[in-house]
Each structure stands twice: as structure tokens, then as C-alpha cells.
């Protein structure tokens, strides 16, 4: 069935583009250490807020040259109270490919020093400029993307088993169990989710390591989403359990838990897939919203949301548009997920299939 879906996705023009874009983004994120010229914490504080490096390949005498860039020098103009950036033309910094730079662990395992591109030791290459601390926005985008783009999936992996089991049990047992369990789920659903989200995020114990914080945010996102999911699963289980093979399983005395897990829940697969792709973007958006408010991923860690926080400043938007790139990336990936979700829904929806034929 997965194959079928992929095939259909490939056939649809928009979905195809979306798949390619997402694939590209995820590959970039996977190899972030290698692609990014710097680590996420590397900073050159004498180069705070510098614009994107200009890369030249025709030198001042009009000759073709290996690509090179200049460093910026920062000058404080006392009359205009302004910091100005000029090229330091005293030295050309050639761009080197697959050369040694900041050490890292490739895929978190193999220690390596080579980067896709870098420049000499005293040169700096900032493809998308730098932030307030002189950190490379391009590198941080890649590392921040790892967090932003996986947090949704991780949350789904936490909430789906809970939702499935909860909905399955509630639907299968029915009666009082069902009523109590569903009332509880409804109560959770009746609390406006964003309100709940910020409250939960704000009561996270302070002083956690960044990994702990990340995991807890995943957990919070999951806590908010499970109830709605469970409710739908329950509805599906109610109709599935009347089917013959379930009754057959009952009659041969299979345990209730086994029936739920083995016979009923697998029937909900198609729904699960749709729900998964459809809800990933909402988690990406939730994370960015949280971080934007300062309740999500914290400095010095990067996520697209907390990078965007810096960009909300008026003067930054006007004078430092490169800080807006995380917003653009959020937009692109959410859009791509939505387009894919739409297409999958059309494929899986038996009714539209019928009409199509």
C-alpha cells in the first residue's frame, strides 16, 4: 500500500514537487554537519549581523578566478551612530571544497573535519549572514531544522500508540468504560490546545539540558494531540468490531487485548497514515510558535522558531532580511507536507477513488 501511495504521489504534479522539496530538505538536515561550514555554536563576534558573504569569481582585473570572498570589517560611525560593514579587501579568501574546517561527528558517529565548502582559517563564509552573536545563519538553519523538522514526527510517535490503544480499548469495550474514557478525552480536547501548550511549556522545570527540554516539548505536543486522535480511532473501532472476522476471533476465545491489537487496530492503518501526514505540519507550526514566544527551544540551541524570534524586530526585517529565512523554510516545508497530505487523502479515500474510476 505504501508503494501505491508513493506511486500516486509521483503522478501528481504538486505532490511530486512537494516530495522533492521535502526530500531535499531532509537530506540537507541529515548531512547538516558536513554541509554547514560551521558548527551551530561557532561564532565570530567581531562579525555580528554581517550580511551574506559575497562570492566573487571574476577578480578586480576582470579575470576569471577561483571563487573567493572577503571578510567584513565592522566600523562604528560615531556621527551616525551606525555600525557599517565594509569588505576587508586586503586579503582574498578562496573557497575550498571538501577541505578541513571545524571538527564534527559525521552522522553523529564518525569524527571528521572536512566540510562541503569552507574557506581558509582566518576567512569567513556566511552564506546567509550572521545573527546577533556572529553565528552563521546558514549553519544554524541546518542544525535548527533538525529540531524543527523532527519534533513533529517524534511527537506523533509518542501520541499514536497512546491514541490507538486508548481509542481501541474505549471503542472495543464500549459501555461504561467507553463513556468514562471518552468523557476524559473530551475534557482534554475541550481545553484550547494552544493555551494548554503554553501552560505546559511554561511549567517545564528550569535548568534542564537542551536534550531534556527537547524531549519534554515532544511529550507536551503529544499530550495535546492524543485525545482527538483517540476519539476518531474509537469511532472506527466501533464499526470494525461488528465485522465478521472480529466476531470470529472472539468466538475462538482470543484475548480482548489481542483482538484489539492484532485484529482491530491494523484496520485503521490508512487513517493513521493520513492523520500522520496531515498533523506533522501543525506540530512544526506549534513548535515554532512556542519557540517564538520563548517557551520552546532555548538559546544557544537553534530551532527555526527561536531563530525567527530575532527576526520579528522591525529593524531586523528591514535591514537584515537574511534573518527571515527560517520563516520561509517553515512555510515551504509546511506547505509541502500539506500538499502531500492532500494527495494521500484523495488516494486513500475510497469514495473519491470510486468516482475517479
Amino acid at each position, binding site marked *: 500500500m505504501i508503494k501505491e501511495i508513493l506511486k500516486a504521489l509521483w503522478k501528481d504534479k*504538486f505532490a511530486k514537487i512537494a516530495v522533492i522539496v521535502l526530500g531535499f530538505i531532509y537530506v540537507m538536515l541529515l548531512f547538516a554537519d558536513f554541509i554547514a561550514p560551521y558548527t551551530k555554536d561557532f561564532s565570530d563576534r567581531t562579525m555580528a549581523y554581517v550580511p551574506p558573504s559575497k562570492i566573487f569569481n571574476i577578480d578586480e582585473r576582470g579575470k576569471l578566478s577561483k571563487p573567493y570572498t572577503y571578510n567584513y570589517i565592522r566600523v562604528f560611525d560615531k556621527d551616525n551612530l551606525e555600525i557599517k560593514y565594509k569588505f576587508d579587501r586586503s586579503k582574498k579568501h578562496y573557497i575550498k571544497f571538501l577541505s578541513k574546517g571545524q571538527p564534527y561527528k559525521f552522522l553523529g558517529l564518525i569524527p571528521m573535519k572536512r566540510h562541503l565548502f569552507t574557506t581558509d582559517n582566518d576567512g569567513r563564509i556566511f552564506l546567509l549572514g550572521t545573527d546577533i552573536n556572529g553565528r552563521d545563519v546558514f549553519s544554524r538553519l541546518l542544525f535548527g531544522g533538525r529540531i524543527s523538522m523532527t519534533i513533529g514526527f517524534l511527537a506523533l510517535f509518542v501520541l499514536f500508540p497512546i491514541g490507538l490503544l486508548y481509542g481501541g480499548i474505549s471503542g472495543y469495550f464500549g459501555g461504561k468504560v467507553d463513556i468514562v474514557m471518552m*468523557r*476524559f478525552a*473530551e*475534557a*482534554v*480536547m*475541550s*481545553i*484550547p*490546545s*494552544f*493555551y*494548554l501548550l*503554553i*501552560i*505546559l511549556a*511554561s*511549567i517545564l*522545570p*528550569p535548568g534542564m539540558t537542551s536534550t531534556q527540554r527537547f524531549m519534554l516539548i515532544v511529550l507536551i505536543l503529544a499530550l495535546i494531540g492524543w485525545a482527538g486522535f483517540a476519539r476518531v480511532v474509537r469511532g472506527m473501532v466501533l464499526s470494525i468490531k461488528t465485522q465478521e472476522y472480529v466476531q470470529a476471533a472472539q468466538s475462538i476465545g482470543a484475548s480482548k487485548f489481542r483482538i484489539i491489537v492484532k485484529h482491530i487496530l491494523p484496520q485503521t492503518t490508512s487513517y493513521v497514515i493520513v492523520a500522520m501526514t496531515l498533523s506533522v*505540519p501543525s506540530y512544526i*507550526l506549534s513548535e*515554532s*510558535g512556542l519557540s*517564538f*514566544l520563548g517557551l520552546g527551544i532555548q538559546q544557544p540551541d537553534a530551532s527555526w522558531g527561536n531563530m*525567527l524570534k530575532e*527576526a*520579528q524586530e*522591525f529593524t531586523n*526585517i*528591514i535591514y537584515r532580511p537574511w534573518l527571515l529565512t527560517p*520563516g520561509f523554510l*517553515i*512555510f*515551504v516545508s*509546511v*506547505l509541502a507536507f*500539506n*500538499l502531500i497530505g*492532500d494527495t494521500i487523502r484523495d488516494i486513500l*479515500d475510497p*469514495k*473519491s477513488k*470510486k*468516482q*475517479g474510476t
Partner: protein
Amino acid sequence: MNDTFKYIIKRILQTIPLLIMISIISFFIIRLSPVDPLAELKLNPSVSPATVERESKRLGLDKPIIVQYGKWAFSFVKGDLGVTSTGEKVSKKLAERIPNTLLLTTLVILLTWLVGVPLGIIAAVKWKTPFDRILTVLTSIGMAIPSFFFAVLLLLFAVKTGWFPIGGLTSPNYSEMSFWGKFCDIAYHLILPVFVLFTISLAGLQRQMRANMLDVLDSDYVKFARAKGLSEFKVVYKHALRNAVNPMITLLGFEFASLLSGAALTEYVFQYPGLGRLILEAVLKSDINLVMASLMMGAVMLVAGNLIADILLILTDPRIRGRA
């Protein structure tokens, strides 16, 4: 009619245990917080320790949590929501904000329905044509922009063009305006926030309407109507439409819910004096009473929204009553 009435009563009664459950969940979540609600007072050098002591007593922080919940629930029922950590009445603060949030959300719901339903119908009628596809992509784009980011950009746009006010709900000289002046002033301030929320919530509604319409168009009685030789126009707008809109009413409650959540960030960026901004500020300051009350009010509004949707549904679709 009697049946309908009974069902409505039953439905209203059902919300009571729901609300109790919500209050318990929210109360315990908030009180699990390791944050000291008096921290702000404690750091303020102009507040004496005696004052801090008094505040702590007033908030009942020295009692066990069950007692605190009991105290809280009892006074909530009486309509006394306590005071904020700065000594203002919570009920007063909420009363200032809730109408504004309701105004914003109702407007957005109205607008999305006015636009989303027709768009859904057209998309369904023109199913699988490029028009349908492009519409889906367009609404997807609207849905994909982070609301706060969109709001920030719109504010920038407002500054650059000078066409719109920078947030808020009324102009400084509002109180001196005539009735129409006031009306226009509020409308003027509402344009941008409504636009943001409208953009992000249109897609969902349009899709749902499209799906419903497709379902109905595929049903036997529509096929039958077509077979009868009725014009396509009549088939769609007379027979299919009614049946497709009905299930949408259930959605009203959910839409209200998601709007309430979505509005928080928009309110924050636009400095809109609504419930969402209030709760954000309260959360950041760990103002327990205020957080608790606004959370409850949000939930109450949501439950009420669902209730209204259900009641509407019964009134329009008598079949439900039988099921109930």
C-alpha cells in the same frame, strides 16, 4: 418539539461533568508547576516581606492542593474567580477581554463560512479540474504560513503603507466618536487580525465542504435526481447543498476551538486586547489565578461553542434526534 427540547436539556446537563473534569485537569496541571507565583513580588525591593506573607496567605499557598482545589472550585461556582498576583479582580480582567476575543472569532467564523462554503462547493463541482487543484494549493499556502510570522509581516506592511493601524482595537479618541465612527474605528482595527486568522482557517473549512459535497454528489439520491433529468444547477444547489452543509454545523464547534487557539499568537502580535494575549501574559508571569480562570473560560467558551453547534444541528436535522 418536546423531544428536541429534552435532547437539548440532556445535552446541556452533559456539559456539567465535562466542565468539572476540565477544571480538575487544568488545576492539577497548573499546580504541578515548580514556579513560585510570588517570585515577582519577592524580587521587588519596594514590597515588604509582610506583604509577601499576606499574599501567600491570600492565595492559600500554605494549604494542601486538594483544599486549594476545593476552595477554588467553590468560589468559581459562586462567580468569584479570585484576584491576580497584582491584586486585581480576575473576573474583571476576563470581562474586559472575553467580548473582544468573541468579536474576533465570530467575525472570522462568519467570514470563513461566507467564503469557504462557496469555494468548497465550486471545488467539488469542478472536481479534479485544474481549478480545483489550484484552489487547494492556494488554501494550502494560506494554511502553511506561521500565523505569528504572517502577522509580523502584515504589521510591517501597515507601517510602510500607513493604511492600517498598528494593532490595538480602538483609536485614542474613540470615546469621542459617534456611533458610526466607533463602528468604523473598530472595523478598521479588526481588518488585519481578522485577515490573518481568516487566511489560516479558510483551508480547513473549504476542504471539509468540498469533501462533504463530493460525498453527497456521489450519493444515490443525487444520482437519482440527475437521472430524473434535473438541470445540473438544480441538482447541486437544491438537493446536494442542503445535505452537504448540515454536517458542517458539527464542525462549527471545532472551528471555534481551533480559532481560539490560533488567535492567541495573532492577538499577541497585534496587541489585541483579547483572552489569548491575557493568558500569555499570565502564563509568563505565572499568575496562577488568572491562568486558571482564563483556561477555564477558554474551555467554557469551547464547550458552549460545541453545544450551540449541536443544538443547531438538531434544529436543522431532525434525524439526529432519533439517534440521541
